[in-house]
């Protein structure tokens, strides 16, 4: 037993060999704040927010990238720890322009949460000069990159390279010139980017946000409804962010099967077809001269039923055939085949599985 225990805030806590302090602590019920840590990717220790005190160590250690050893004594809640974390938050705040009022991520920002938690009311360090901040890049239809809010945590780089492996995003330049770049510092749409938006999904601040969602609703105004993607057969789990009965944004359900927090360009960004003005809104009946006229449900349904009855009477039920929809819900296909078999009396029911 001894070699799988460490001391967390004075309490014996189990860990798995090779586990980092962060994960072992979270398993032990102690939450350590993070900005750069990304589950499933190699820890980088970039943001220094997860600093903890380790007895015997010369300095504070990053919990995300320090492996636990047997008997190690770790403190996550000391004055020294909080002082260091607060200082790091202050430095990050000064490294850009974090004006929450004008930020799409307001209410959905880990940096904002930390600034609030540490009761930071004024900036301790001068903010970076606007002229030193890379300009906003939003030449593509879906993703806004606001470098004034980028804390260089590298989560987008890791998500792009280690999770979805599209290899479009990387760290560019050095020191104070550092910048997250795509395709040798090109706009997203000139790079390898396939607009899966995983970078937006993992961004802890407002540096990467969904262009289509801008101004449509703050995090606290929206309700999340879980559903299944309407495109390919993978069955990705999505959160629909709803404000006033309207979808304003789609994100992935973290840890859900089968997609484990991932979506593609269609699943994440191609949701607003439902609001198209082209939608069919009333039943339509063809007129003698070829055009269509609007009709009531009663008139249209009566016509369909009468016409089917007439065909059955004259030509038999097998003179009617139907094709169901592989996009619609199971219950719709069930009803349609039941209509054909039990009501019309034919097995002439199929769908596009074969074509």
């Amino acid at each position, binding site marked *: 037993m001894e070699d799988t225990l460490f001391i967390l805030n004075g309490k014996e806590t189990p860990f798995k060999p090779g586990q980092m302090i962060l994960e072992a602590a979270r398993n032990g019920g102690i939450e350590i704040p993070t900005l750069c840590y990304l589950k499933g990717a190699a820890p980088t220790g970039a943001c220094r927010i997860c600093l903890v005190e380790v007895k015997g160590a010369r300095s504070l250690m990053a919990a995300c990238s320090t492996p636990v050893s047997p008997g190690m004594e770790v403190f996550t809640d000391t004055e020294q720890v909080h002082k260091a974390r607060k200082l790091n938050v202050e430095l990050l705040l000064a490294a850009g322009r974090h004006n929450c009022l004008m930020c799409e991520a307001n209410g959905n920002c880990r940096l904002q949460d930390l600034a609030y938690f540490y009761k930071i009311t004024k900036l301790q360090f001068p903010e970076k000069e606007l002229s030193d901040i890379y300009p906003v890049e939003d030449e593509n239809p879906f993703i806004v990159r606001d470098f004034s809010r980028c804390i260089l945590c590298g989560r987008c780089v890791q998500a792009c390279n280690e999770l979805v492996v599209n290899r479009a995003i990387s760290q560019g330049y050095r020191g104070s010139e550092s910048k997250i770049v795509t395709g040798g510092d090109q706009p997203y749409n000139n790079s390898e980017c396939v607009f899966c938006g995983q970078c937006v999904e993992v961004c802890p601040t407002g540096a990467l946000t969904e262009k289509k969602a801008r101004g449509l609703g703050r995090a606290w105004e929206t309700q999340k409804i879980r559903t299944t993607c309407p495109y390919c*057969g993978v069955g990705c789990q999505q959160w629909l962010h709803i404000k006033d009965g309207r979808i304003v944004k789609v994100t992935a359900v973290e840890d859900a099967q089968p997609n484990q927090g991932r979506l593609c360009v269609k699943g994440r960004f191609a949701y607003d077809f439902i609001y198209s003005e082209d939608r069919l809104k009333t039943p339509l009946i063809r007129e003698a001269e070829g055009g269509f006229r609007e009709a009531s449900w009663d008139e249209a349904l009566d016509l369909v039923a009468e016409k089917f009855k007439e065909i059955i009477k004259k030509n038999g039920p097998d003179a009617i055939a139907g094709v169901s929809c592989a996009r619609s819900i199971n*219950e719709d296909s069930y009803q349609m085949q039941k209509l054909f078999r039990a009501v019309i009396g034919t097995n002439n029911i199929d769908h596009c599985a074969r074509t």
Partner: protein
Amino acid sequence: MILIVGSNMTEAHPVAATFVKDAVLGGAQLIVVDPRRTDLVDFANLHVPIKVGSDVAFINGVMNVLISENLYDKKYVESCTIGFEELRQKVMEYPPERAAAISGVSAEMIREVARRLASVKPAMLMYTLGITEHVCGVNNVMSCANLQMLLGNVGFECGGVNPLRGQNNVQGACDMGALPNVFPGYQRVDNEQAREKFRKAWKVKSLPDKPGLMMPTMMEGLTTGKIKGFYVFGENLANTEPDIHHVEHCLQSAEFLVCQDIFPTETTRFAHVILPAAAWSENDGTFTSSERRVNRVRTASVPPGEAKPNWWIFKEIAGRMGHKWKSANAREIWDNEVSVLAPSLAGIKYSRLENDGLQWPAPSEDHPGTATLHKDGCFTCGLGVLKAIDWIPPAEVPDEDYPLVLSTGRRLYHYHTRTQTGRSSGINELLPEETADISAADAEAKGIVDGEMISVKSRRGEVAVKARITRQVPQGLVWMAFHFREACANWLTNPVYDPVTQTAEYKACAVRIDKLKAMTLAENECNEV
């Protein structure tokens, strides 16, 4: 070890592809068998660029090596399968050299594939429509199964034969019995007991006992007058079926065509009645994914105007034809009918679908669902059947008049006929038009430059489309999608079908490409100046 055959996952199933790439980063081997150099090839240990439609010959060649070099799983074959001797005799007719001559890859590469596959266990095989959309689609699928059984890979996690289904609920539509030969849960309509069960449940006097028509035969029936009434629910047949001129002739011939959809489409133009339906996020219900996972779909917005849920529309028509159905929402339909009538879904109730859904078969309410079928090689049908299969070429092969092969599929940014993605803001910016993807060699032979409008012509039609010169496509191949109406590949595709499934040969027909006559080379140069 992952073997991908006829599947362009990064574009057609992007999220599934991310897990393949993760596996490669984690050390898995990847073999991609595809005529095109698809994006996953960048991650592959081996790309096997077989000729379009040569899958059976290639796989027979691989199996020839596995048997000749004693690399197959004898124990598995003996205890879990039947038909080995017939298979052995057949694949002995396909030594690597012969398979190589048909498939266009070297005999050495075929040997290497076999040896690599035999070196890791289990190996997972994934395929998509590159396997099924051929006149020999069924044989292609069975060849994949042959290979995986010979390697002893069926019935294990990270093994098996895994088709990636192209649409969100194509699995579910099959499960629900939207097929001419089976009731929900694959219970055959020509089985008297099954019929009796459904007859009682649906409270009707009788149910039809002979399997119905498959879609292509239905469409033909419209032209011969055999089919008078045609009900098309959520399908844009006028763009998705092969040979659009012919398809539109069929639709035009319908005496009474009902279309139920969320948008006006090229197909609804032919309708006599159009019924407006609620869309994806306007319904409560379930989709079933490729991995047989039944997932919830939830209502998030209201349908526009008077659009109604599809299940309600069917119920109303049934009511007007003298049948009063009880279930009044999707949950009642599933819980009280579907899961009661389909034994493999008996354990799946809405109350159990709150989180990650359930994978069928789940025969009882305490069953956790089934992730892997045919567990440990114990096939649901008893023993796995190895089947001797001969290669046949595509129905239409290149000749002097039409010297190139056209193969078709989907691209990342659009989906099918763009009824949805074409109306989602931003998507059209990323992919505004169709292209004919051709090799540099074929382009050069015709003096075609990248981005130039060209003619692609088959025996069925001709389209004007922008040429895209790419190293993805080998010499002799033209590749197009069916997303855009004007340059839709289905003006060109060949309406020939697998004899069993009636799946059309979208993946192979003969075409020619030419510079557009209207714009001669000289004019083109003028324009550039």
